[in-house]
Structures are given as structure tokens and as C-alpha cells.
């Protein structure tokens, strides 16, 4: 059984006013096949957690650890972490001019697997995943995320999730900006990945509606850079109704 373990993670960023502490001791353990929802107010550090796990150079780890099956991830480069089995579906996916989706996907698949995929099987998988995500074939020849709508970018993230088959994925607001149909399509993609590969998920969201399709095992409330409370799916419903007021009594955002 694979396990992703985050312990006492402390992260800061450099700002014009100096170093700013954002994560203040995050503890989270995600087991194989488990789905953990993370909810919390704007600016509480959810994306920071996602980027820190993936290894974005802007975020400085001040302390703590992130281990995948006992192996420390924080010492590794971004691409090494991905090859170890981590995946980040970004809140704002980046446009890559000059690189086609198909070229990008094949290069990534080759990097993750350590060898080029067999052509016929690969094309078949790609076609099937794109079809399931209702992405037109023409996207293969377009440059990565260039001119994609918000929803198309999110589908493209899930397409990568399906094809690269990571052990653990952080989905940062993958549901934001999706209409109801797209939300269902994307959720189905996530669920397929769970079923097929036993994917463990950290699902960052503001809304309960995605949790109706991607069922969480645990819900964590993230406030001021740490987990303030945890519970089951019922906590998400309560948060959506009540907001975060009761956690914010003694904190200010930013």
C-alpha cells in the first residue's frame, strides 16, 4: 500500500516586504486509493501546499517532510518528484507556446516511464482518454494550453492525470470554472484514475458539488496555513452552509 505523508510542513515565500510564512505545520497522511478534500478560505495556503509538494522553486521549505512510501520528496527536483509518482493538476495551468499537446504528452509519458510508449497502444490510450473527456482530436495539434478556455485547460490536466498514472495527485481547484456537464466529465476522469490505478487524491476545492461526484473519505479544513479541523464528507456540507467564520474568529487573511 502506497502512502503519502506530510509532516509538520512549514513553507515561506519571499515578498517585497520580506519573508512571509504561509504554511505553519501541516500534517496529512493520504493512503492509496483515498480521497482527501481540502477546503478553506482564500489565501489560507491551499495552493501553497500543492506547489510545495510538487517542488515549485518559489516556495521555500522551512521545515517538515513530505514522504512517498518512506522516501523524502523535498530533496528531489520537480521532475524527480513527478517520476516518483506525484502529480499536480494546477489551479492555473501554464501555456507552452510552440509545443503541441501530443508532443508534450508523449515526452512526459516517456520521461515518467523511462522509455517511449509503444506507438499503437499509446495512440489508442490517448484517443480513448480524450474521447472520455470530450476533447476534440484537434487539441492534439494545438500548443499546450494556448488559447484553451478555462474548462479546456482543466480537462487537459485530467487527461495528463489519466495518461501519466501517478500514485498521488493534488487537484488544485480543478472544479473551478467548470459548467455542470464539464464537472461531471472531469469527475468521471478522476474516478477512472482512482479505479484503474489506486490513485490517492488531495482534492482542493471551495465547493461541495464536486464532492458529490468524487466522494471524499476525509475532509480537512485549512485555515491560516494549517489543518484546523478534519472530518468525514458531512463536514463539507456543513462548511458550505456555515462558511469558515467559526475558524476565522482570531485570524485575518493575508
Amino acid at each position, binding site marked *: 500500500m502506497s502512502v503519502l505523508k506530510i509532516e509538520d510542513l512549514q513553507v515561506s515565500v519571499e515578498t517585497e516586504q520580506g519573508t512571509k510564512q504561509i504554511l505553519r505545520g501541516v500534517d496529512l497522511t493520504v493512503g492509496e486509493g483515498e480521497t482527501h478534500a481540502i477546503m478553506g478560505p482564500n489565501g489560507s495556503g491551499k495552493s501553497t501546499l500543492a506547489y510545495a509538494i510538487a517542488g515549485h522553486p518559489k516556495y521555500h521549505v522551512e521545515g517538515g517532510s513530505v514522504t512517498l512510501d518512506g522516501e523524502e520528496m523535498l530533496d528531489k*527536483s520537480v521532475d524527480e518528484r513527478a517520476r516518483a509518482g506525484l502529480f499536480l493538476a494546477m489551479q492555473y495551468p501554464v501555456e507552452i*507556446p*510552440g509545443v*503541441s499537446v501530443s508532443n*508534450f504528452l508523449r515526452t*512526459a509519458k516517456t*520521461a515518467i516511464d523511462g522509455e517511449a510508449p509503444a506507438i499503437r497502444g499509446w495512440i489508442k490510450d490517448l484517443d480513448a482518454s480524450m474521447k472520455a473527456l470530450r476533447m476534440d482530436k484537434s487539441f492534439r495539434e494545438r500548443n499546450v494550453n494556448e488559447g484553451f478556455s478555462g474548462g479546456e485547460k482543466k480537462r487537459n490536466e485530467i487527461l495528463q492525470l489519466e495518461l*501519466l498514472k501517478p500514485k498521488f495527485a493534488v487537484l488544485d481547484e480543478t472544479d473551478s470554472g467548470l459548467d455542470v456537464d464539464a464537472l461531471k466529465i472531469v469527475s468521471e476522469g478522476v474516478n477512472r484514475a482512482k479505479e484503474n490505478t489506486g490513485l490517492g487524491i488531495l482534492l482542493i476545492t471551495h465547493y461541495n458539488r464536486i464532492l458529490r461526484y468524487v466522494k471524499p473519505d476525509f475532509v480537512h479544513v485549512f485555515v491560516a496555513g494549517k489543518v484546523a479541523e478534519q472530518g468525514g464528507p458531512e463536514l463539507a456540507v456543513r462548511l458550505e452552509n456555515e462558511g469558515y467564520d467559526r475558524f476565522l474568529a482570531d485570524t485575518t487573511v493575508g
Partner: protein
Amino acid sequence: MAAPQISETDQPAAPLIDRPDPAQHGLQAHSDGGSAFVPVQTRSERFTSTSPDDFEAVTGREFEWKFVPLAKVAHLISDAVDGSPTAFSYTENGGATVDWIDRTNALIGSAGAPEERASANAWSSAEKALHILVTGEDGQETVIRRDRFDGSARAAHVVIEAAPNSKGTVILEHAGDANLAENVEIVVGDNAQLTVVTVQEWDDSAIHLSSHFARIGRDANLKHVIVSLGGSVVRVNPSFHLVEQGASIDSFGLYFADAGQYFEQRPYVDHVAANTRSRVNYKGALQGEGAHTVWVGDVLIGPHADGTDSYEQNRNLVLSEGTRADSIPNLEIETGNILGAGHASSTGRFDDEQLFYLQSRGITEEEARRLVVRGFLAEIIQQIGSETLEARLSQAIEVELLAAQATE
């Protein structure tokens, strides 16, 4: 997270005279701070002469010279240069003949005349012209390899002539050292289809100032490709005169400037006759301290060029700090009756966010850079139409990338 850093100016048909503010995309502070000086005269009124003394001494403030590292090229502008023929090699294929012609030959001057002093200096100094006559109709390829120059200052003159109804490709390959000012005339006969590719893979020390002049005949097409990968100062400025009905030009450029290299190209498309068409597409990559590229794209649609269809664009990809890419499109329209005229210029940066995104998918940093540059430049390479050359240039670009990474 930061948004992708692409700036774009895409504009439809412009008013009568359109000289947009020169776009200046340096990642380094621009030393003189001001915008580039663009003379208000129209391009067709620019002074021409084959005699260097008809031009005033160059100070570096002229628009033609303002970006060039003048100290490195001043001798080619104002000193005596050796105009004797220099040996070259070429592959025989039956579609073309290659010989030396006298400077008194009527072909000389039939495609254009110098617009600046270095060009005039080369014009008046070259003793003979290398004459490549394309007569084949099957698209044969003639490769002229010019790799026997040396560090001494030289002048050269080349005339590439495509007979009416002919179809062929002429590739000028440049390697080794050079200290060369030259003029290349291209005469495309009626209904001919000519491809001219000039590849600069000079040694790091080489200086090369080249002016190309093309006269494109009725219903004829010229595909013109400039590839600059090596050299210290390399400037290839082509002028394309669409003087007969139905003439068309496809002008492509690809450049990759490393630390300390200066590459300039100023394509000028002169729509004289009606129903002429032009497409200009240049792409450049810059990597390393002091890499500097300049693209100035002039398009003039003259008073009789009704039905003109024209589009020009330049895209630059910046791969590291300390580089500078100048990109200046100019469009002048002197008739209201055109099909279309547009221009685009952008300088995008391969930035840390893009690198992070690719790495987060398991791709190493080196591979990520290669992926982006290869993809970016492939559009131009694919236009060359010579499989051998396309493969070799793709390889050369990989080598550029590896070399640049090794010195980081």
C-alpha cells in the same frame, strides 16, 4: 501564479501610413531608453547608390546602423576591401550552372541597388560576381558551400537567376571564418519558382554583412529563407521587389543567438504591381548574456499595388536573462484597394512557470528547453523543403542548445 509572458500586436489593415512605435523587447534595460528612430520618409524614397562615397560617414545614429556593434564592422563600411573571387565548392546536379561573370554584365544591378554604405562598398569593390543560373524545371537543389573565406576583409557579389518557367532550389552555406560584406541579387523570371536558402553557420569570430535584392517577375514565386546560427555579427537584409502582376514572396527566417552574438535581419517587401502576395515569418531564439537579435520588417504597398495580400510576423523566444530582441514591423499602404495587410510581433519568454509545468510532468530541465525551442523553430524549418538540410538544421539547433546549456 504569473500569467504567460507573451506580448502581441496583431493588427488588421492599417491606415495610410502606419509606423507603430517600434516594439523593443529587451529583458535588460534598454541603454538609450528612447524609442528607435524611424525616418518619416517612405521606404521607396530611400537613397540608393552603388558608390560608397555617395553616402555620408556612418555614425551609428542612422536607423540602418543603430543596433549594430559598429566597432566590429566599421572597416567593412569605410575601408578598402578585397574584391577578388573566393573559392567555393558546389554540388553539380544538372538543374543549374555556376560560373563567374564580369561586373560589367547586364545582370548586375538588375535586382536592386545598395541603400547603405557597406553594401555600396561591397558593390564597388567586388571584381566578379558568382552567377548561379537555374534552368531546370524539376526543383533540383544546388548547394554552394562558401567556407574558404578567412579573417581578411572581403567583398563579394552573387547573382542567382531563375530562368522563366524554371523551378529549383539554391542553398548558400556559410561556414568557417569570414569578414565579409556582400550583395546577393536574385532575379526570378516570369512564372519561375525559386527557393533560396542562406545558412550562416560561421565560426564565432565571423563578421558578415549581406544585402539581398530580389526582383520577382510575373506570376513567379520566390521562397527565401535566412538561417543564422553562428557568427559574431551576422546581418542579412533582403529586399523583395514584386514588380509584376501575380508575383509572390514567402520570406522566412530562423535565428538562434548565443552569448555575445548579434544577428540582424530586415526583410523589406516592396509591392509594386497589382495582385501581388507576400508572407513574412521570422522566428528567433536567444540564449546567453549579450545575445542580441534585430528584426525590422518593412512592407510597402505602392499606389499601383491593388489587390495586395500581405502579412508579416516576427516571434522571438527568450531563453535566459541578459538578452535583447528588437522587433519592429513597419507597414506603409499607399492604395486603399488591397486584400489584406497585417503584422504581428511578439517576444515571449520561456519562463520559470513553463519550466515548472513541464518538469512537474517528469520532464527534465534540459529536455524541457529542447522541447520548447524545437517546437518553436520547427515551423520555419519545415518550410525549407530540403529534407537533408532540414534534418541537418534540426541537428544544428540541438547542438546549439546543448552547447548553451553546457556553459550555463
